[in-house]
């Protein structure tokens, strides 16, 4: 595929040409090496960009990270269609699900993306305020972003608030096949995994892996796609 020539300057680097398989990985926000660990083990025709502020892709011009950008990048780089699969890793899981809910891909994979424990409004605002204060106190996160490598600002989560009711309603709008991969790094309560996976409207599969290494995840996705 060809990246449009007039895309903004912060569109990711490391996008392969000619992509018949139509699989794309949105690596985790703040991943120290960007998409490189995934490119090292994924089939060569998978699309694994360095997202803005990671690896060889420049930081967003606003210097801030938000879940809209990965949705747009997936729309621009992953050909839409029933054969396309979008993988959202941890903080990018919500963006992958938004793309899927909009009908942008035929299948969606979330890695450690079923959400953590549900918080009360008081706890959510506590977390929100703590995150704001941490960024303001972190000079490296507010000074100009580096021209390459990991932008320290990307170590902070998007701050997408969610609740059980919201997740249940939103995921019920996703009718494509969903693979939920849970690794030892997941923050989802183990006894809630199966219940949450069942909230998706379409066929959903839960895969529990013993490793959070990209190679194990790529293998699980490959098996799932092959087995239909």
């Amino acid at each position, binding site marked *: 595929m060809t990246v*449009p020539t*007039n*895309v*903004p300057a*912060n569109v990711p680097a490391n996008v392969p040409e000619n992509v018949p398989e139509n699989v794309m990985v949105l690596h985790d926000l703040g991943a120290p090496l960007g998409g490189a660990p995934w490119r090292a083990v994924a089939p060569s025709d998978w699309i694994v960009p360095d997202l803005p502020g990671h690896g060889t892709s420049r930081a*967003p*011009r*606003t*210097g*801030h990270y*938000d*879940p*809209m*950008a990965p*949705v*747009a990048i997936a*729309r621009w780089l992953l050909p839409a269609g029933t054969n396309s699969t979008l993988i959202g890793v941890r903080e990018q899981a*919500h*963006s992958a699900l*938004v793309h899927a*809910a*909009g*009908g*942008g891909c035929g299948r969606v994979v979330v890695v450690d993306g079923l959400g953590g424990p549900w918080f009360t*409004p*008081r706890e*959510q*605002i506590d977390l*929100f*305020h703590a*995150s*704001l*204060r941490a*960024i*303001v106190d972190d000079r490296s996160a*507010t*000074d*100009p*972003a580096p021209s390459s490598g990991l932008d320290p*600002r990307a170590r902070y989560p*998007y*701050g*997408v*608030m*969610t*609740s059980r009711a*919201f997740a249940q*309603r*939103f995921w019920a*709008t996703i009718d494509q096949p969903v693979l939920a991969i849970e690794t030892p790094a997941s923050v989802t309560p183990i006894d809630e995994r199966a219940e949450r996976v069942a909230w998706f409207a379409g066929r959903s599969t839960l895969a529990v892996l013993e490793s959070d290494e990209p190679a194990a995840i790529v293998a699980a996705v490959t098996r799932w796609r092959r087995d239909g």
Partner: protein
Amino acid sequence: MKFRTPDRAEMVAVNRTNLRLWCWGDPSLPPVLLLHGAYDHGRMFDEIAPQIAALGYHVMALDFRGHGDSGPLDTGFAWALLHLDLAMLVRHLGAGPVGIVAHSFGGGQAIGLAGAFPELVRWLVVIDGLGPPPAAFVMPHDIRSAIQDTASRTDRIVFGEPREWDSVEEMAQRRGANNLRLSDEWALHLARHGARRGQHGGWVWKADRMFGLGVPSEFNVGLLAEEHRRVQCPVLVITGTEHDTWRDLTQEEETERIGWLRARHVAVPGTGHYVHLEDPVATLAAITEFTDVFEREVGP
């Protein structure tokens, strides 16, 4: 109407962007920050700002990021980002905690700042800015269409060019049609300072078109209440009394939210959403009474 051009215009580099400040009064006096609403800009305070400065304050009206002369946005998912801008701006100013007069969306931002950074805010005046009605928090029935609409709007913004208007007067007419209670003079003033030259010789709005876009995420009345309850400083809420665009809380909802803030409340008769533009005399009187009490009881 007596607009007074700001005494100074400053551009402040914080949080990886540039923020425009329009300033009135003596910089050595206690600082007051004026915050505009969505799609507006700091010049909306050209009438009341010099009068607040005359109360003994250094008054600075901000252009939020994505508005006026300040830096751009890449997203409408900017609630937290603008909180950060405000916190870093107040710290950058180095004049200690600020008083804030904030309208509409700016009121929500000010409430968020005061809750998350209580050490940065002395007092707060919120002009019809208590948040959207409960219906605004409900997820769209057709989520797929809503996401697709956001996607197509995003692509039009990123890959297309903004609409160019033939004249500022034409833009003022549009503004007046959206906000029926605005006088022609105010609509023209807001359009004049809210527009810049386009690439093809016409005029385009300065407000970033990405501002209104976002992704589905949770926000509800419970979270709103929790944010409001975190505010510790004295708060004055000023509202209008008339039905108006963007003035859509019921009386009960308004009363409940004022209670969350433990705020004083002044309703200015005969005004709608733009209380400070429609009746600057009554608005200033309410602010004066509030700040007089604060300065007398709390002091510098």
